[in-house]
């Protein structure tokens, strides 16, 4: 069965489009599923002694979420294919409504649609999580609780942290990885398009489930979900656990799919040495996702059992240990840091040569740096437990491995500096964001050395110094690269041009305000301001007031970005010129909008992507010249 492209009948009334497998059906069945699951869980809980002894029934909540998700995915149409395969039907790829808005609201196996879906989901919840941050900073204008009770404040912190972690893990690889990787390697689609589609709907569901914690009493643990606090927390903790299980599963599947795609779907001539660095970065990230996220999922499943089935994994009184959760969590959690960082470096190294108009400096070194970071990131997790009572002899090992990771990271900076050296830069908005990203990440990385060093970490652990560090790496590094990627590829993905003046104002305001917001937090940390505490010493109020006001302005500059997105995409709709950056990238050689199957016939790749300014450089590909199969050889 070949690809079917099913177009909506022209005479069909508009309301008929609401009926069928789509988001609306998914939401309705999701709610019904939740209700049924909660009811069933209530029945089961009534028969269990330990539930009767408690005033909460976690079984009802977890079963509600489980059946709710079954309804949600069923309503979206994700069970149709598995059932047809169960009945022995052969593979059949349906790309529903290849034109029109409907395709964005249902399961769609076109990787470009999935990329746009990811982009919208990420942006929406980025603003929701950012709004949480504004509420946190509002509370911190005063040194004692004045707006939110302490438990609400903790929930806000947890919502902000968890949502940002979940979303930022997919911030680049979701929208841009899914949209661009098949095109960049000369393929027509991802290796497993249904799995690809499923991950975006998981990424949508996860923050919604997380937000439900607010209605279930909140959760007190922040994004790390540490036990035994998590074991003791009320029902809102179930939302956190379910949301993170969803996110972890999505990360695993994204990693699996991207690796399979790059391994098997490369066009003839797309050798490993010609692979764009953006793709290499996603490959390194995908390795981390595939291998670390399953450990997180298992840890959270054990937490589910602790909360529902009286297992004692994380309670030391009965043969368990809270340190077990810390170990399992950070075995995922530290690679997660590089899941966040590596895609950003991929964006930076992809964009730099375009605006420097010279070849990338040190391609091989960049690949070695990315893979080196990926490999080392599995050997550092215990530095998060320096103050948790780990065996003292282990500390130097983890200190050394953590500091060692700055070597491959340094490779990537050398690549960037070498490319910038003597370049005649075109200071367009994407390049500005890349330069700012490098600056911010440098501060984040250097401050990380203090946290990898046991003696200084013992002092700084749990303080705002850590907060400042992680925001410099995640928002300053990945966040800025997300903006760089957006401004660079928006004309390709939408065929539209954004407002350049607003974009420049956005850059300068966000760069200045980001630094005025987060740099003072290093000082706050050194002055002993603890993380996740709603009260602080009164001598810290001036610095907190400064940070809060700066944060509000930073939020305003983000609104400028949102306004630019909505204005350019939905209102002005000014067509973009083809290849406005004069890039050699394959994606820019295709027409806009990119055809459903990208290439009529697979292209032959004949040159690398970064030969800018090289006399006699061949074009990257010979389009539609090959009848040879994919595979890169």
């Amino acid at each position, binding site marked *: 069965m070949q*690809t079917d492209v099913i177009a909506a009948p022209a005479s069909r009334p508009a309301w008929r489009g609401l009926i069928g497998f789509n988001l609306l059906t998914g939401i309705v069945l999701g709610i019904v599923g939740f209700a049924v699951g909660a009811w069933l869980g209530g029945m089961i809980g009534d028969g269990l002694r330990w539930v009767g002894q408690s005033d909460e029934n976690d079984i009802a909540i977890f079963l509600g979420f489980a059946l709710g998700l079954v309804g949600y995915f069923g309503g979206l149409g994700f069970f149709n294919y598995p059932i047809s395969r169960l009945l022995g*039907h*052969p593979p059949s790829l349906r790309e529903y409504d290849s034109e029109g808005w409907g395709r964005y609201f249902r399961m769609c196996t076109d990787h470009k649609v999935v990329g746009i879906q990811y982009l919208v989901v990420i942006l929406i919840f980025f603003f929701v999580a950012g709004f949480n941050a504004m509420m946190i900073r509002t509370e911190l204008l005063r040194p004692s609780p004045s707006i939110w009770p302490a438990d609400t404040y903790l929930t806000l912190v947890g919502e902000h942290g968890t949502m940002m972690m979940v979303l930022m893990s997919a911030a680049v690889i979701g929208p841009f990885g899914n949209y661009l990787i098949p095109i960049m390697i000369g393929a027509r689609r991802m290796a497993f398009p249904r799995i690809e589609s499923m991950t975006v709907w998981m990424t949508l569901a996860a923050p919604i489930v997380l937000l439900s914690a607010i209605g279930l009493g909140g959760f007190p643990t922040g994004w790390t979900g540490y036990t035994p606090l998590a074991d003791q927390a009320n029902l809102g903790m179930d939302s956190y656990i379910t949301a993170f299980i969803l996110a972890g599963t999505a990360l*695993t599947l994204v990693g699996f799919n991207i690796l*399979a795609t790059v391994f098997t779907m490369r066009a003839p001539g797309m050798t490993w040495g010609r692979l764009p660095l953006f793709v290499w970065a996603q490959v390194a990230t995908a390795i981390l996702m595939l291998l670390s996220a399953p450990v997180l999922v298992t840890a959270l499943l*054990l937490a589910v059992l602790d909360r529902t089935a009286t297992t*004692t994994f994380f309670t030391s009184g009965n043969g*368990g*240990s809270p340190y077990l959760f810390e170990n399992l969590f950070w075995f995922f959690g530290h690679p997660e840091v590089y899941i966040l960082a590596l895609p950003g470096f991929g964006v930076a190294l992809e964009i730099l040569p375009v605006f420097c108009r010279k070849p990338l400096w040190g391609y091989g070194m960049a690949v070695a740096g990315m893979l080196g970071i990926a490999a080392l990131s599995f050997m550092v997790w215990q530095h998060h437990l320096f103050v948790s009572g780990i065996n003292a002899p282990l500390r130097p090992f983890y200190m050394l491995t953590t500091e060692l990771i700055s070597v491959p990271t340094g490779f990537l900076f050398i690549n960037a500096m070498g490319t910038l050296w003597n370049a005649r830069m075109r200071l367009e908005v994407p390049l500005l964001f890349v330069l700012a990203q490098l600056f911010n990440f440098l501060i984040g990385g250097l401050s990380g050395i203090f946290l990898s060093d046991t003696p200084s970490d013992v002092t700084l652990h749990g303080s705002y110094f850590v907060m400042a560090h992680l925001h410099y790496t995640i928002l300053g590094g990945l966040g800025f690269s997300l903006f760089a990627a957006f401004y660079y590829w928006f004309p390709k993905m939408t065929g539209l041009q954004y407002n350049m003046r607003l974009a420049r104002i956005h850059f300068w305001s966000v760069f200045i305000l980001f630094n005025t917001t987060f740099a003072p937090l290093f000082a706050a940390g050194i002055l002993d301001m603890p993380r996740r505490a709603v009260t602080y010493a009164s001598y810290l109020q001036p610095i907190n007031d400064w940070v809060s006001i700066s944060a509000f302005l930073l939020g305003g500059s983000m609104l400028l970005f949102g306004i630019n997105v909505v204005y350019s995409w939905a209102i002005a709709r000014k067509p973009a010129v083809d290849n406005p950056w004069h890039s050699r990238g394959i994606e820019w050689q295709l027409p806009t909008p990119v055809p459903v199957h990208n290439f009529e016939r697979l292209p032959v790749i004949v040159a690398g992507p970064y030969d800018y300014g090289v006399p006699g450089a061949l074009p990257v590909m010979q389009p539609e010249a090959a009848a040879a*199969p994919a595979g890169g050889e």
Partner: protein
Amino acid sequence: MADQQLIEGEDIQAAVRNYWVGSRLWIAGLVFYFLAFAFSFLYLRSLNANHMWHPAKVQAPAVWGTAIVAALVVSAIVFTIARTALERNSLSIWRWAALVAFLLALTAAALQIVEYRELGFGPGAGGFASTFVAWTGGVLVVVLGMAYWLETIWATSIRAGTTLADTSRGERRMLAANVEGFGAVWYFVVAVAVATYGLLYWVG
């Protein structure tokens, strides 16, 4: 189903490679999924907090465990027979042997569920009891998933009928790739089940 060299709009060689690569990547993900259970087992066992790792009254029922693992091992052996039959184009043997392998996997899952009812201790009876319930449950979920995969392969081959006899046809090449990919993961899962059995029932 018409013969084709294109599967889902892509050249069949890419689809065949997807099975091979995808199954190996899936094994890599499963390694770390099971590693978390193994780490929990070893970590809690070494800590033995409050001497509550493995109270004397908690005894894993070895008879049930042996039966479960035996069903899985026999399923893997029968699957090997099915796979060999397919390679030799003995479609009838393939279909029967694949069906038996599938039923044995389901039997193992059913035995596991029965074992939970006959366990003699609760999941809260110490670190070992918790790990036992969770780890065997983790294996159970994967076994059920694999049984689903095998059923889809078997059902596809039944529906394709005699067209599968032509080894040059796209459907046949896809089936062979699917079987090869499934086999790689299934042997791995059964090996994990055997190792799990050794740790949970004998090392404790």
